[in-house]
């Protein structure tokens, strides 16, 4: 309550916390670096000033650490260690979790309750048994990461991960760097991570808890922060890497793509668009309110900033409640989510974008009140639900909890509307009877979607998801095949036939 906040704020000390993870450097070496701080409401993050020379040294040592601690480590042992490290996070009293729950809201502006309730299920994605799903999803036999295993073509294959992957982390949604780092570890790659200035803390905390569990593995991780696009620093960061990954907006990803050296695999997780489709079954009188609640969660979680957040929801017409009534129920649930987990304070430009959308539709609602209706938070721009009967095209949301509801007679209608966005589509959250889910998924997959999930689960992809349509692990590895015919030929050189008898 406000009284508490008023009383505690002036007395609270500004904590200084490490906003970097560099176990490869000694205390003396760290002391010689130049330092800077990034201040947030409750804390100050201390970070080294990153130079090309620093990146070079760190990259060299990461490569050395990979050879020493990771290259020959059995993959199941790595999964054990990471699983154990992540299981520490399931304890509400674990210090890094408490730190994350306290500071991430201040760093990102997201509501504390939203961060708290978002992080917990997310960290369970990395439970040991779920790490096995990551492996199983991408490798028929995960032991290919440890040695040559029989392949379908009659020979044997082994998958080599990069020695070092340079990873540009995203900052829009707390937690994402854990996915990147853990996937790299599972294919035995060290990570040189560049944290996002929007959210530089989480990657550091995850790396530190892995190091706590296994210092050797910890030395295969480094997290630094530099300004995106710093040419000489990034050149150095890409130089020693066997692969580069980047998660971010269109411009950031394109700019990195230009600087990754030719021949170095580049895995880009760029701008993506998600949406929901609600079947008439989910509009039954005993289901519609719950469906609305789930959609509201999908839209509101992390203020719609994630690529997994829906921009629009298509609602079938022939349900027990009509799409317009559903839009009203959705609006009521958006208002309730806002009570508990209010949206972050947004910039003037962002507010103006929302006001523009609202006023455009309000004007149309005035002209044709049956076809358009705007439900909006009473004060400010906290949330907006636009009911729009006949959209001209699929419009992107300005985000920050703005969602459009479009009625449809049949899911086939959305194929044409989504066509212009084909290359950018990602998650479709659906709610329909089980016997329709398969054909819906066929159609959605044809449209360009790479993830079909239930409404209410859009912000939490399952362990092992083919992120943006690719295997999170498979996209990092390089295959080496020993041809079947060669193995037969090798028989010819068996010492039994070739060595002189004593």
């Amino acid at each position, binding site marked *: *309550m406000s009284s508490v906040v008023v*009383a505690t704020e002036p007395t609270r000390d500004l904590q200084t916390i490490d906003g970097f993870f560099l176990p490869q450097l000694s205390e003396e070496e760290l002391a010689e670096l130049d330092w800077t701080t990034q201040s947030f409401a409750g804390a100050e993050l201390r970070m080294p000033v990153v130079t090309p020379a620093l990146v070079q040294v760190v990259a060299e040592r990461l490569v050395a650490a990979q050879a020493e601690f990771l290259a020959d480590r059995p993959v199941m042992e790595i999964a054990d260690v990471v699983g154990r490290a992540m299981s520490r996070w399931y304890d509400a009293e674990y210090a890094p979790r408490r730190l994350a729950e306290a500071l991430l*809201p201040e760093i*990102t*502006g997201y509501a504390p309750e939203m961060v708290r309730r978002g992080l917990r299920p997310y960290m369970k994605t990395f439970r040991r048994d779920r790490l096995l799903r990551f492996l199983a999803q991408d490798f028929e036999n995960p032991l290919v990461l440890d040695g040559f295993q029989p392949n379908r073509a009659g020979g044997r294959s082994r998958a080599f991960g990069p020695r070092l992957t340079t990873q540009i982390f995203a900052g829009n949604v707390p937690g994402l760097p854990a996915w990147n780092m853990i996937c790299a570890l599972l294919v035995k790659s060290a990570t040189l991570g560049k944290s996002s200035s929007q959210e530089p803390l989480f990657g550091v905390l995850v790396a530190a808890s892995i190091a706590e569990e296994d210092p050797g593995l910890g030395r295969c991780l480094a997290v630094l922060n530099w300004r995106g696009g710093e040419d000489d620093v990034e050149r150095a960061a890409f130089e020693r890497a066997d692969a580069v990954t980047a998660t971010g907006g269109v411009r950031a990803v394109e700019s990195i793509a230009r600087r990754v050296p030719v021949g170095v695999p580049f895995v880009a997780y760029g701008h993506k668009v998600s949406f929901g489709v609600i079947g008439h079954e989910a509009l039954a009188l005993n289901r519609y309110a719950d469906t609305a609640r789930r959609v509201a969660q999908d839209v509101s979680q992390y203020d719609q900033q994630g690529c997994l957040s829906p921009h629009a929801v298509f609602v079938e017409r022939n349900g027990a409640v009509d799409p317009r009534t559903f839009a009203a129920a959705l609006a*009521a649930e958006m208002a309730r989510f806002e009570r508990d987990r209010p949206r*972050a304070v947004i910039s003037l430009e962002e507010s103006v974008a929302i006001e523009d959308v609202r006023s455009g539709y309000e004007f149309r609602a005035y002209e044709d009140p049956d076809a358009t209706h705007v439900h909006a938070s009473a004060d400010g721009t906290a949330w907006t639900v636009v009911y729009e009967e006949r959209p001209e095209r699929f419009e992107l949301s300005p985000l920050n909890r703005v969602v459009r509801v479009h009625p449809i007679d049949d899911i086939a209608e959305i194929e044409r509307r989504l066509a212009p966005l084909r290359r950018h589509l990602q998650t479709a959250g659906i709610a329909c009877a089980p016997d329709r889910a398969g054909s819906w998924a066929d159609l959605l997959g044809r449209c360009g979607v790479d993830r079909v999930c239930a409404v209410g689960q859009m912000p939490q992809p399952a362990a092992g998801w083919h992120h943006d349509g690719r295997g999170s692990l498979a996209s990092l590895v390089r295959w080496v095949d020993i041809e079947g015919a060669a193995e037969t030929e090798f028989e010819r050189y068996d010492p039994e036939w070739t060595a002189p008898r004593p």
Partner: protein
Amino acid sequence: MSGTQVPPPGPTAARPLPLGSSDMLADRVALVTGASRGIGATIARALAAHGATVAVNYLSRHDRAQEVVSEIRAGGGRAEAFAADVTDAAAVSAMAARVSERFGPVNLLVNNALREYRFDPLARRTAWDIPWEHYERQFEGSLGGAFNACRAVMPGMRDAGDGRIVNLVTDLIERPSIGYHDYTTAKAALLGFSRNLAADLGPFGITVNCVAPGLVHPTDASNRTTDQQRDELEVVTPLRRLASPEDVAGAILYFASPWSSFVTGACLFVDGGLVMR
């Protein structure tokens, strides 16, 4: 969302009091028991925002009570903190005298205090192992505390021919979603006590009513319920959320205001429609 922006400190902070302000209760001297934190603190602030002079009673948290007082004063209201254990009749009577001396006789009493109770749905005592002493402690706190406070203010109210008493109970008395046996039984007794009081005090122009909240969140008392339990409760509640301290204060304002002049012996459920009666 850069480092220079100061984000909002919390879900309920920095938001205008949704209950508004007025001078409707300007002639009320209110005593709110257990008002240093949680629901009681919100009730104290809401009454003050509508013009009442508020005696903020507390047991031990002088600092928190003082915060409530300071906040009320900062908003232009009148308030002061008064320590007293409501289960101690002499202490309550002395407190009522001090309030009367400072502000005039109490003509609005809100019995909100209760015995320290651990609302832990996973570690509660079951029907087959709860000892009688636990019931006694809750009777002493909820019922005994209200009894002492009512006795202390009754003569003044009777002399004035006017008074409002509002007692906090719980919707668990109608729908024991979770078996907090001792707590709920004592609250049910408080409802019976209130109705009897209403019958006896009506002739003197004193109304006695109850407010029965559902699970209120966030408060110190509810923070042991799990996210999942709160979600499940929300889904079966027609208004599909939990009560906030402000929701409870809204019902208190109604019973404190002239709009409820002809209502006594009532129990108003503030639980989003979970209990309908």
